[in-house]
C-alpha cells in the first residue's frame, strides 16, 4: 500500500519534471493585440513597441516601473541646460553581425522622426533635437531650450543598423532588414496567426531564459483565457477582470498584477454656453460652474465601481498618476463618496432639481469601459443629474469625440476617456488634457472639455523647462493641484490595474506601461 503510493508519487514527480523539459525552452504567449509591423519606427503604439523591444535595444531602457536604466548607452549626463552627452556601449553586434556605433544612433534618430510611411511617428521624441556624433562611441544631443525630458525621449527610440538605410516596413516585416541588437531575432511572422522569436546569443545583456518565444494574437478575451486553460498557450495578457477571482483559486494558474500608468477620467464641457447634450432648466451649461463639476466628482462612488464593475482590480484615483510616480501631488486625495454633499453643491450652483446630460464613452477601448459609463450614469441619476449612457466602438467614438480646438470643439459635452502617461510623469497628461488648446505648442490636443486656466499653463510651461528634478516635481504637483484640485478640470475615476496569467510556475514583473515582454516571463 505504502509502496504503491510512493511509486505513484515518484511517477507523478517524474512526469512533472519531464513534461516541462520538452517545452521548457519555448514560451507560447496569447496576446490581445498584434503589432502592425516589425519596423520599430513605423507605428508608435503599445502593441508595436512591446514587440519591437524584443528585437531592438534603445540607448536607455525603461524597466517594468518605467525607471530608466542603461541600454546601448552606458552613461549619460546633461553637459549644460541644452546639451546632453551619451557614452555608447562597446563591442555590441547587430543580429546580422555588423558592429554598433554612433552612426547607427544618428541614423536611427533621423529615421524615427522622418519615416515616410509612419502611422504614428516617433517625431514626438526627436522633434527639436540635434544629434551629433562626437566619436565612434559618444554622441551629443542638443535642444534650443532647456529640455528636462531628454532621457525619457531617448528611451523611446529603437536603434536600427545604418546598413539598412533606405529599407522600410516591408523589408522589416519579411525579416530581411529586421536586425537589431535586442535579445531576440525574428523567426517568422504570419500576420494574424503567429510571430516567432529566436534567442540571439550575442545579446549584450543577461541571457534570457527562453530559446524561443511564440506569440499568437487572440483578440477575444474569453477565447484567450480558454486557450490558456486548455493549455494551448503558456501565458496571456489582458486577463478580463471578471475571471480573476476564479483564476486565483485555480492551482494551475499563476497571476501577475500591477497598476498601470493609465487613469480613467471624465471630461466636462467648459466652453460652450448651449451644449447639445446637456439640458438644464435655465438653458445654460451647468458644467461651466466648478461647483457642478465638484458635485459630479462627489456623486461617484469610486469604491463601488472598483468593487463591482472592476471586480476589485483597479485603484480609485484622485489625480493623473498612481502612487510611486514622479511629479505627483501629495495633497490631492481621492474624492470621498458624498451624494448629500453633491446635492448641496448642485443646489448652491442653482440646480436643486438637477439637469439632464448624456455621457458618451467607448465600449472596446479600456477595461470594462461601457460598464463604467453605465455605472456612472446610474450614480449621477441618483443625485438628480439624469444621465443617459451612450457607448460605441472606439473606431466611431474617437472620430466623433475629436477635439479640434475652441472653433471646432468635440461633438459631445460629457465623455469618459483614459490616458496612459508614456513618459511616466504627469507633464504629458497635464499638457494634453488640461493645457489650453494651442496648436503651435502642441498643447490640449486631447483637452475634450476645453478646460483653460492661464495660471496652470504658466506653471506647466515653467516645469517643462526646468531641468532640476526636485523643482520640476514640485511645479508639476502644483499644476495638478490647480487643474484637478481647484478647478476640477477633469474628474479622475481610477487607475487601471493590469493582469497577466500564466501556467503555474511562471512569473511576470507586471509593467506600468501595460506591455507584455516575453523575456520578462520567467520560471520561478
Amino acid at each position, binding site marked *: 500500500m505504502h509502496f504503491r503510493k510512493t511509486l505513484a508519487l515518484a511517477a507523478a514527480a517524474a512526469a512533472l519534471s519531464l513534461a516541462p523539459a520538452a517545452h521548457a525552452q519555448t514560451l507560447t504567449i496569447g496576446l490581445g493585440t498584434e503589432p502592425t509591423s516589425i519596423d520599430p519606427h513605423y507605428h508608435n503604439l503599445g502593441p508595436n513597441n512591446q514587440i519591437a523591444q524584443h528585437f531592438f535595444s534603445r540607448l536607455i531602457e525603461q524597466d517594468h516601473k518605467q525607471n530608466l536604466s542603461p541600454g546601448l548607452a552606458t552613461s549619460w549626463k546633461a553637459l549644460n541646460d541644452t546639451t546632453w552627452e551619451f557614452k555608447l556601449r562597446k563591442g555590441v553586434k547587430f543580429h546580422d553581425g555588423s558592429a554598433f556605433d554612433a552612426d547607427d544612433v544618428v541614423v536611427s534618430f533621423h529615421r524615427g522622426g522622418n519615416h515616410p510611411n509612419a502611422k504614428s511617428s516617433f517625431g514626438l521624441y526627436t522633434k527639436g533635437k540635434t544629434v551629433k556624433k562626437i566619436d565612434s562611441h559618444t554622441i551629443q544631443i542638443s535642444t534650443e531650450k532647456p529640455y528636462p525630458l531628454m532621457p525619457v525621449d531617448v528611451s523611446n527610440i529603437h536603434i536600427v543598423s545604418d546598413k539598412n538605410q533606405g529599407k522600410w516596413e516591408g523589408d522589416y516585416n519579411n525579416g530581411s532588414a529586421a536586425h537589431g541588437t535586442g535579445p531576440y531575432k525574428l523567426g517568422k511572422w504570419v500576420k494574424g496567426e503567429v510571430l516567432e522569436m529566436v534567442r540571439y546569443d550575442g545579446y549584450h545583456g543577461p541571457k534570457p531564459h527562453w530559446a524561443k518565444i511564440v506569440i499568437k494574437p487572440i483578440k477575444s478575451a474569453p477565447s484567450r483565457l480558454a486557450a490558456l*486553460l486548455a493549455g494551448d498557450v503558456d501565458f496571456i495578457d489582458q486577463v478580463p477582470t471578471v475571471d480573476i477571482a476564479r483564476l486565483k483559486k485555480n492551482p494551475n494558474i499563476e497571476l501577475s498584477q500591477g497598476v498601470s500608468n493609465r487613469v480613467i477620467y471624465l471630461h466636462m464641457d467648459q466652453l460652450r454656453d448651449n451644449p447639445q447634450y446637456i439640458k438644464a432648466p435655465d438653458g445654460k451649461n451647468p458644467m461651466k460652474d466648478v461647483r457642478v463639476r465638484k458635485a459630479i466628482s462627489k456623486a461617484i462612488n469610486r469604491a463601488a465601481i472598483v468593487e463591482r464593475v472592476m471586480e476589485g482590480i483597479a485603484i480609485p484615483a484622485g489625480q493623473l498618476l498612481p502612487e510611486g510616480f514622479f511629479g505627483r501631488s501629495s495633497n490631492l486625495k481621492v474624492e470621498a463618496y458624498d451624494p448629500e454633499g453633491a446635492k448641496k453643491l448642485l443646489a448652491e450652483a442653482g440646480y436643486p432639481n438637477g439637469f439632464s446630460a448624456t455621457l458618451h464613452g467607448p465600449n472596446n477601448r479600456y477595461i470594462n469601459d461601457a460598464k463604467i459609463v453605465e455605472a456612472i450614469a446610474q450614480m449621477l441619476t441618483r443625485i438628480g443629474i439624469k444621465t443617459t449612457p451612450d457607448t460605441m466602438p472606439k473606431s466611431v467614438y474617437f472620430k466623433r469625440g475629436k477635439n479640434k480646438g475652441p472653433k471646432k470643439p468635440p461633438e459631445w459635452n460629457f465623455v469618459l476617456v483614459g490616458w496612459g502617461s508614456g513618459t511616466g510623469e504627469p507633464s504629458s497628461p497635464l499638457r494634453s488634457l488640461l493645457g489650453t488648446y494651442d496648436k503651435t505648442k502642441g498643447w490640449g490636443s486631447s483637452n475634450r472639455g476645453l478646460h483653460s486656466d492661464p495660471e496652470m499653463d504658466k506653471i506647466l510651461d515653467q516645469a517643462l523647462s526646468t531641468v532640476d528634478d526636485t523643482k520640476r516635481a514640485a511645479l508639476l504637483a502644483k499644476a495638478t493641484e490647480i487643474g484637478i484640485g481647484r478647478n476640477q478640470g477633469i474628474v479622475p475615476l481610477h487607475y487601471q490595474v493590469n493582469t497577466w496569467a500564466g501556467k503555474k510556475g511562471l512569473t511576470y514583473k507586471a509593467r506600468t506601461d501595460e506591455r507584455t515582454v516575453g523575456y520578462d516571463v520567467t520560471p520561478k
Partner: protein
Amino acid sequence: MNTVAEQVEPLATPEAIEAKVETPFQRFVSSFLASKVATAALVVLAVLIFMAIFAPLISPTNPYDLAQVSVLDSKLPPGAKSFDGMTFWLGTDGAGRDLVSAMIYGLRISLGVGVMSGIVAMAIGAAIGLIAAFYGGRVENVIMRIVDIQLSFPAILVALILLAILGKGVDKIIIALIIVQWAYYARTVRGSALVERNKEYIEAATCLAIGHRRILFRHLLPNCLPPLIVVGTIQTAHAISLEATLSFLGVGLPVSEPSLGLLISNGFDYMLSGKYWISFFPGVALLVTIVSINLVGDQLRDVLNPRLER
C-alpha cells in the same frame, strides 16, 4: 390571422377541398393542427409574442430605467436578492439588470427588429416583384437581374458592410435587414404572380381596361400571399438570428438596450468565470424563439403549398 387565412382559399390543398362542410379557415386550421409539434410551437410563439408586446406590464423591473438599476446588484446568481429585497429569479447581468426583465425586453427588441424589418421588406419586395411580373420585358429584366445579384451575396456579408457604414442602433439594423431581405420577397412574389398573370381572368381584366393598380393589388397580390407568408415566417427567424450574430460581431445594437443576441454576447465574457446564467438563459430564449418560428413556418409551408421547398 383571420383575414390572412381567408385570402389563402384559392390555393387550398386538394385534400381540404374534399371536406366540403368546413369553411376554408377551418380547413386551414385543422390541417395546421394536425402536427402536434407545430401546434406546440405556435402556442410557444404566441406566448413569446404576448410577452414581447406587454413587456412593460409583465416585466418585474424596467431594465432601461437607470434609477431602478444598480451596479451594486451586478452578476448576482439566480435566486439572489437585491439590497432592497427584490428577488432576481434568473440572476442579474453585468450592469445589475434583473435578467428576467432584461430577457423580456430583449425578446421585445429581437422580435421587434425581426418583424419590423420583415414587414417593410415584404411590402417593398412584394411591390417590386408584382411590378416585375406585371409589366415584364425590360423592367422585369432589370429588376430580376438586380435581385439575382443581391441574392448571390450572403445576407450576413451585405449586412455587415452596411452596418459598418451605418453604425449602431435599432433603426440602423432594421434598415440593414430590410435591404438584405427585400429581394427574397421580390423573387417569391414574381414567381407566383407570373403563373397567375397568364391565367384567363387576368387577361379578361386587362381587356376590360381595369386599372393596373386594381389588377395588381386586387387580383395578383392575393394569389401570391400563401408563399409570401411562408417565406415571411422563415425570413423573420433568419432576421432574428442574423441580428443576434451581428450584435455578437459588434456591429449591431448599442449595449444600453440589449437584444437577446447582445445579452448572450455580453454574457460570454462571464462564462468562463462560472457565471453561466448571464449568457445561458438568453441563449435558450433565443433558441426557443427561432425554433418555434421555424417549426410554424415549416408547417405553414406544408399546409399552404406542399410544392414550395427551400
